[in-house]
């Protein structure tokens, strides 16, 4: 029997990027298939190809043994493929049944009127058949996110989908809702539907899927049956190899305090408090890491330090001087390098070539100026040296930033910032989207900077990265540090608990921050305040 879905040698290229490279994928009917990979591995792109949003550069989509060429999602829907996006596409003030039938309404009076009763009935039937607990007359805005997700699934089923693609379905759900979703999966597959879901979480894949395909850098690393594989093996497939990073501890004790953050409170763009009283001291020759799930206030904390955001309370001092009224430019001039989280919005001017990007942040620096004039020759040679040292490919300083792949854009930013000769490096996700070789190089340079006596503030969502590089590791949750620990002794479980905002209930955790080191009293909810100098 033919597999429900067969992707045959799919390659999808974007300008400067190969998102999918000759990917094969076969999914059996009635099974749950997990597409696993790190951010940027090409999972969503692959599914967008299957759903007709992108046309593959090469390769073929085969549904039920029949080769298909989708020009739009409409074609995919006609072929029985439905996709539930991570961000739902529902009309919130409308009722559930209206959302489900929207665009395909049953009509009466020769198409002049929507047959509400028939529509309601159809939605009720579908809901009952798959055991969804959904009332068609509820308004979407009134129901929980989990129910909204089911409405999306109903929408796809109503349009006759046999194959359901779910993009990171658990990202928005509470743990209980995740369990319910797994039940829904079971119900759907029992009735012959095929499910493909995208995830970057190992546990989800092993828990819910029959088979798992791991994507890495746009390539299919392998498809395995869930029963035949261990989490460790999967992790290795995702990351590419055993990531046992060599820890190179600081050779010399840290020196003077470079950055002193005191009781910092900051709001996010919506005016909601995102950082609630964080204190930390970062010294010369030390890497201070911040771990935590994205969105727990790391961004706002970093922006407050680098001068992109005005904190609502607390203070930041640099070399002992408060930075309250110090502009972003002045902070750069005083020796603060910053690898921003969003490299394409902040770190690079996408339409400019690398020469012009090489002076971003130093456009008033005497290194590149004669009076008011910007010396493009010096900028060009600087760009060239960054390109060469940091292995930016292709090595073309006249190419626009947008024409480079994400990894190479990142390498260029990292190079530019490191070459500033800073006293403090603030690095947020410095290796995100960067290949293994370059990652190692960036790690080496970070370590080098430390041994040169620079202070490094490292934020990364990669646990292994922060753990291997940091001398002290703070864990952030809900705007506060739940603990500052010794990365050499802390276990993954302890980190996991801290990241979830809980306190490991044993005293094996080495809290290293000045105050807590001698004091094993559990960091309470106000841990942020305690973790101070």
């Amino acid at each position, binding site marked *: 029997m033919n597999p429900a879905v067969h992707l045959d040698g799919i390659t999808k290229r*974007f300008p*400067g*990027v*190969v998102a999918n490279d000759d990917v094969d994928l076969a999914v059996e009917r009635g099974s749950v298939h997990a597409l696993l990979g790190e*951010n*940027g*591995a*090409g*999972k*969503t*792109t692959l599914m*967008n190809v299957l759903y*007709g*949003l992108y046309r593959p550069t090469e390769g073929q989509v085969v549904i039920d043994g029949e080769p298909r060429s989708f*020009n*739009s*999602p*409409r074609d995919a829907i006609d072929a029985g493929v439905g996709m539930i*996006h991570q*961000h739902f*596409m529902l009309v919130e003030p409308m009722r559930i049944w209206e959302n489900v039938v929207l*665009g*395909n309404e049953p009509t009466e009076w020769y198409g002049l009127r929507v047959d509400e009763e028939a529509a309601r009935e159809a939605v009720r039937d579908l809901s009952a058949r798959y055991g969804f607990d959904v009332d068609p007359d509820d308004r979407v805005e009134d129901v929980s996110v989990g129910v909204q997700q089911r409405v999306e699934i109903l929408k796809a089923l109503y*349009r006759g989908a046999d194959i359901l693609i779910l*993009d990171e379905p658990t*990202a928005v759900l509470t743990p209980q809702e995740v369990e319910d979703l797994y039940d829904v999966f079971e119900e759907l597959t029992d009735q012959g539907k095929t499910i493909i879901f995208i995830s*970057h979480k190992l546990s989800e894949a092993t828990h819910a899927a029959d088979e798992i395909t791991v994507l890495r850098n*746009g390539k299919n690393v392998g498809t395995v049956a869930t029963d035949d594989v261990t989490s460790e093996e999967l992790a290795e497939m995702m990351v590419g190899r055993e990531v046992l990073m060599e820890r190179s501890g600081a050779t010399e004790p840290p020196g003077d305090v470079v950055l002193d953050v005191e009781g910092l409170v900051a709001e996010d763009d919506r005016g909601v408090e995102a950082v609630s009283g964080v204190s930390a001291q970062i010294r010369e020759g030390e890497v201070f890491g911040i771990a935590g799930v994205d969105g727990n206030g790391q961004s706002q904390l970093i922006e407050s330090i680098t001068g*992109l955001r005005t904190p609502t309370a607390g203070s930041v001092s640099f070399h002992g001087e408060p930075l309250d009224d110090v*502009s*972003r*430019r002045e*902070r*750069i*001039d005083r020796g603060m390098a*910053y690898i*921003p989280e*969003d*490299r*394409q*919005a*902040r770190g690079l*001017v*996408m339409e*400019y070539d690398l020469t012009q990007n090489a*002076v971003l*942040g130093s*456009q008033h620096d005497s290194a590149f*100026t004669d009076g*008011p*004039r*910007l010396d*493009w020759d010096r900028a060009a040679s600087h760009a060239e040296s960054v390109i060469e040292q940091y292995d930016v490919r292709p090595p073309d300083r006249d190419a626009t930033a*947008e*024409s480079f*792949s*994400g990894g190479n854009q*990142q390498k260029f930013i990292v190079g530019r910032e490191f070459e500033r000769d800073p006293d403090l490096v603030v690095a947020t996700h410095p290796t*995100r*989207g960067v290949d293994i070789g370059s990652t190692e190089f960036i790690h080496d340079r970070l370590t080098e900077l430390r041994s040169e006596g620079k202070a490094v503030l490292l934020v990364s969502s990669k646990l292994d990265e922060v753990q291997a590089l940091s001398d002290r590791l703070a864990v952030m949750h809900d705007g506060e540090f739940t603990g500052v620990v010794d990365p050499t002794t802390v276990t993954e479980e302890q980190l996991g608990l801290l990241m979830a905002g809980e306190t490991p209930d044993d005293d094996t955790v080495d809290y290293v921050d000045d105050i807590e080191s001698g004091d094993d009293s559990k960091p309470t909810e106000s841990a942020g305040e305690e973790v101070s100098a």
Partner: protein
Amino acid sequence: MSRSRPGAIRSRVTSLLRRFAEISGVDRVLIALAALGLSVLVGFFIVLGSGRVAECSTAAWTMPITGMGFCYDPFEVFFVLFNGALGGPFYVWEPAIFNPEWLPITLPWLGFMPGWSPFNNAFALTMSETTLLVFTGLSVAVAFRAGLFNIGTQGQLVVGALLTALVVVALAPLFPANRVGGVILIAIGILAGAVGGGVWGAIPGALKAYADANEVITTIMLNFIAANVAYVLVLEVFRAEGSSVVATADVPEYAQIGPWLFPPTGDFAEAALLIGFVSLVALYLFLEHTSLGYDLRVSGIQPLAAEYSGVNAKLTTVRAMTLSGALGGIGGSIWVLMSEGRWVESIPDLGFDGITVSILAGNNPLGVLPAAALFGVLKGGALQVGFQTDVPPELVGVLRGLIILFVAMPEFFRLIGKRLVPDESEVEPSSGDGNDGDGVGGTAAVDDGGEASA
């Protein structure tokens, strides 16, 4: 499935806009030329159509073969439009020998008009319009490059012009009435215009920076304020005695920018064009080769990156608007010192035409000169069409508008394309960025329509 698919249409539109956004420099020039040709072709048929509808005793042009008569000759209209703008360097003649009888139409030949000199009044008008539009075009362009839409160049020009006239008239007695005194007065006058326009531009700049007031709205409002306040001031306070219109006293002859080669009746001075050219080159160097220019450009193109690189966004906004206003104000100075010799209530819409000039130039200072020249030619030529043919001025206006519309549209789409269509590579998740949900942005953008149609 015969229903229309918004998703498909939308992606078509998106990809079309994207293609416009990616056009190269050479292509843009070629497209502009092609658009010019196309607009002439369309205009040709509009002239024909109007000529058929209009009533006249004798046909200006008879269509070969059919013998249909038309009141306006489209060939003549376009010939006069472009030829007239230069003061008629060519004339049309129809040689008998080279016109075999089997040809249905007589082939016109262009001859060079003996005794034609470029320094004629018609060409002077063309050049004068070009010169003034260089300033207003630069004014709009510099704001545009900083991401600001300055509709207020007109008001800045009005204020600059008034200040120039008042300052020069007031200071004239202090300087010797000779060439030297004239040059000093002109310099002071231009400075006054720059200050006046600059202040008038700084107001919306500051409102934008510190009160978050949209500059499009404030500049439009300030246009009205400028025009009416200036009118009342001149009417009540500065009106020249015995003047039949609302105007200031005349700037003394020696303090006006006079022509070197062109006839004095032409209201055009080469020196003014030179000042325009110098401003243009200076602005180009400022934008491309100075730190402040870099700040300004990055602010316009990617405000978040500008903030990251330490650019003070508020200050840059005020600076850009001040510079923009100053250029508009200098345009006003030139208008007073070169064209009118005084401030008069009937100020032409140079500021508004400057917006089109800037768009036509792709907001690049170097492109402003050819764009302004096109406007100048159309202005000078239109006048000649009115003199030399029976075509009504409204129809000439239509032809002008048509040409501008055609030439500006590709640039306009390019601007829209750049602003509205996200770059595919930026949206694309696998460039390795992406937060939790890689590529959701792109998905949502394209998918919406597709789903709705399903």
